[in-house]
């Protein structure tokens, strides 16, 4: 299997009759290693290689995608033929518009990651030691720690992209990830805590003290949550701490600014048609930045061969940009801005986030907490989801404390925040000076996952619905 751009260009040329208005070949080879420790022993150790070619042909507004694991020239030409035939099936035969992007020809010069320790040079036993140490450290923090799942992942991905506009890009991405989940139990109360780190980086991302510290943090939190009472439920002020992570900006704001939800011909998002308009408090600036060295959501090129970029989404309350892939950029007659991502060669590209960050503001973080008579301080967010049509979002809170008379008091568990993205953007009224610690996640959109990063400074939301247990007369337990 060859990822040589010259080989792919020759295959593309051999299928010249099937280019339609635009043809592209995406060739990928990836090697993954997974080491999972569970229940005190290595539970899953696997490694392997997969490779394939995805071919895309546009005819008018219809695109067709065909993929195969066969790298022969005949197979690639046949994929082009099939894609072309499929794209013609019902194509509204409009004149093909020229795609506006141009690739950076200096491909080899661009790299955002130094990869100090390439994972393929690290013995399996050393990778296994990462999860074994994490298990030992977490269990060592108390007899109430009942279960530990620690996982190590690395991926080496080589990609070549060539297209009918005589553009070519070649790239290598290496990602290394560590995750730990700790279960603590005291009597009938069971609590879990989760921590992770990952980056466009080599083994240095997780080794030694890095993963050991996360094991301590997760175990400490699980133990602390055992003593926590259920969170109050209802509408109240909420402060999100800088270390909480940016699930809030990712869910409540980011998804709605992906251009495929904002096409003038097919508007879906609450942010459609609002470029240049105020959509948030003046204190709010949000960027999506794929160029931060080593960050989990960073990339050298997106999966259509466009160099990664820093995009200002909201600047002092004004909506500035959507995130575009080639298709949405063509329809909206702007330059694609490096947001076209796909999970593997089996998937079609679409606009996705990279690292989504709310930038620091002017408010003193301590003063933000002091300003709240009674509310919730969110220290760590969990998973979330958004409905981009209504703007409604919800996310889980992993760790929270009560704020009473401006003071942080006791820990509470089981809280969820639910609100409307555009509303929350407008009512956020304090933004801290503390640039947030960034967190990682796997973002799901339609059928695809993508590695992303997110972060915020300390912010105050004066009013939001906190979900949780409502005290009642009747408590049923087994």
């Amino acid at each position, binding site marked *: 299997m060859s990822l040589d751009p010259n080989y792919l260009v020759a295959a593309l040329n051999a299928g010249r009759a099937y280019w339609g208005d635009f043809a592209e070949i995406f060739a990928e080879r990836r090697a993954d290693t*997974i080491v999972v420790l569970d229940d005190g022993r290595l539970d899953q150790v696997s490694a392997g290689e997969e490779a394939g070619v995805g071919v895309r042909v546009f005819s008018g507004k219809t695109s067709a995608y*065909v993929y195969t694991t066969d790298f022969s020239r005949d197979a690639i030409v046949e994929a082009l033929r099939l894609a072309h035939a499929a794209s013609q099936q019902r194509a509204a035969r409009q004149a093909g518009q020229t795609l506006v992007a141009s690739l950076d020809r200096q491909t080899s010069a661009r790299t955002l990651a130094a990869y100090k320790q390439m994972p393929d040079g690290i013995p399996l036993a050393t990778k296994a030691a990462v999860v074994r140490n994490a298990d030992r450290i977490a269990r060592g923090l108390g007899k109430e720690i009942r279960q530990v799942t620690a996982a190590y992942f690395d991926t080496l991905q080589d990609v070549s992209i060539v297209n009918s506009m005589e553009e070519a890009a070649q790239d290598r991405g290496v990602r290394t990830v560590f995750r730990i989940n700790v279960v603590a139990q005291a009597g009938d109360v069971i609590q879990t805590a989760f921590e992770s780190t990952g980056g466009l980086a080599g083994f240095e991302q997780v080794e030694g003290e890095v993963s050991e510290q996360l094991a301590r943090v997760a175990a400490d939190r699980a133990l602390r949550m055992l003593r926590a009472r259920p969170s109050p439920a209802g509408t109240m002020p909420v402060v999100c701490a800088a270390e909480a992570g940016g699930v809030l900006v990712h869910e409540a704001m980011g998804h709605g600014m992906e251009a495929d939800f904002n096409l003038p011909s*097919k508007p879906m998002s609450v942010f459609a048609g609002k470029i240049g308009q105020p959509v948030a408090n003046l204190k709010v600036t949000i960027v999506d930045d794929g160029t931060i060295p080593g960050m989990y959501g960073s990339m050298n090129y997106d999966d259509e061969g466009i160099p990664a970029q820093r995009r200002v989404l909201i600047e002092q309350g004004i909506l500035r940009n959507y995130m575009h892939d080639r298709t949405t950029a063509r329809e909206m007659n702007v330059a694609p801005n490096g947001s076209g991502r796909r999970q593997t060669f089996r998937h079609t590209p679409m606009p996705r986030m990279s690292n989504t960050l709310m930038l620091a503001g002017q408010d003193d973080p301590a003063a933000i907490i002091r300003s709240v008579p009674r509310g919730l301080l969110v220290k760590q967010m969990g998973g979330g989801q958004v409905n981009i049509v*209504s703007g409604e979002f*919800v996310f889980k809170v992993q760790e929270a404390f009560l704020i009473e008379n401006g003071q942080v008091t006791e820990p509470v568990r089981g809280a969820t925040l639910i609100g409307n993205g555009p509303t929350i953007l407008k009512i956020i009224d304090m933004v801290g000076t503390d640039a947030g610690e960034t967190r990682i996640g796997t973002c799901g959109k339609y059928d695809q996952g993508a590695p992303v990063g997110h972060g915020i400074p300390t912010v105050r939301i004066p009013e939001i619905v906190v979900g*949780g247990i409502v005290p009642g007369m009747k408590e049923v*337990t087994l």
Partner: protein
Amino acid sequence: MTNLGIVQQTITFAKQSGADEAEALLSRRRVLTVEVGNGEVETIKQAEDLGLAVRALVGRRIGLSYATDLGEASLRRAAHRAVEIARASDADEFVGFAEPSAIANIAGFDPEMEKHSTDEKIDRAFAIERAAKEYDKRIVVTRRITYAERESTEAIANTRGLAAEQHNNGWGGGGIVIARDGKEQEAGFGSDAKRRYVEFDPVKIGMEAAEKAVMLLGATNVTTQRASILLEPKMTGAFLGIIASLVSADNVQKGKSLLAGKIGKAVAASGVTIVDDGAFVGAPGMRAFDDEGVPSQRTVVIADGILQNYLHSTYTARKGNTRSTGNTARASFKTAPEAQPSNFLLVAGSESAETLRAGIARGLWVRNLMNLHTANPISGEFSFGANGLWIEEGKIVGPVRGVTISGNLTDLLINLRGIGNDVVWQGGMGLSVGAPSVVIEDVSIAGK
């Protein structure tokens, strides 16, 4: 070479690399996906995909590797790597492969797939869009209305003499439509999964999506309180999917299920019966054998509220001193097999959804849930975003959005008070769930 020939060859390579025992699984998929929107064909995706997974045993140590290239050098490399990984793994006395056994024939492949043109299949996607638009003039259809068909072949062999092959296909479709009224807009999602081409009904999908979107227009919030909920079948299915992970013997044996140690005990209200049946005729996950080659079977999980059985793979069965229930599944050829439900069914009751609703004094008819992936299977705690229709004295008062429903899965099963007769299946190969409408009392609803 035949599919079985390829897997047999791979286990031979593993033996040559030093494996004491080996197993290989070849999975081939063919997919066709059509996406339309606003009268246009947006994307047509078609593919032939494959993956070969090889597991090797060295003593009591196991390793897994895989390849997408079926050339001899690639298969040798994967087999050799599986052996190397096994040598670096921890010994475990319970690892091992399935024994060969007789596999019953099922009608998993519907030959109608080959009898219809791509053009006709594109029309089925447009039929979803048309049905949604005809439902209400406030409906706007935008993009990604999807028709999908897939065909899969699995061949498996191991050094204990097991060799089996199966061929399945199925249809799915769905999409999000928007209801717009003035400045307000709401989304509705419709979907369906079928194993026979003639049963796949695009009109039903379009109407479901449209009804769910229009229903929410004008929604308000409610005060924070405890009240009953009526879950529509797909929302019951969402909860059932979480319950399904609690009876996986993998999770039970690792202490990751609140149902661990509860066999023979009452874990749900009387009247609640849940079964798992890999060969359930017409269910989305219908299959002849599981991902280790063990034949599909029917397993009673909960009978009239009493927990009866967990679901087992070969590994968990050996560890638990029992027999595999044919419940091994792999998320993909790249990942290790685990005990997972196949077709997981909450057996229907006798009442219609209307009768159930009429019996509710005050509560929420839950039509959509958000953030399902955040339920905690160990503590049982959950808190989901919800919307739907508010019910007072058995009658629908109006739509509600922006609330959460929270509680514990244990209480949820115990507080289940009514089971409908309207079972709906959803999902695909891998986990598929069938569930009717149910009523649950005394649930925390947080709002204004």
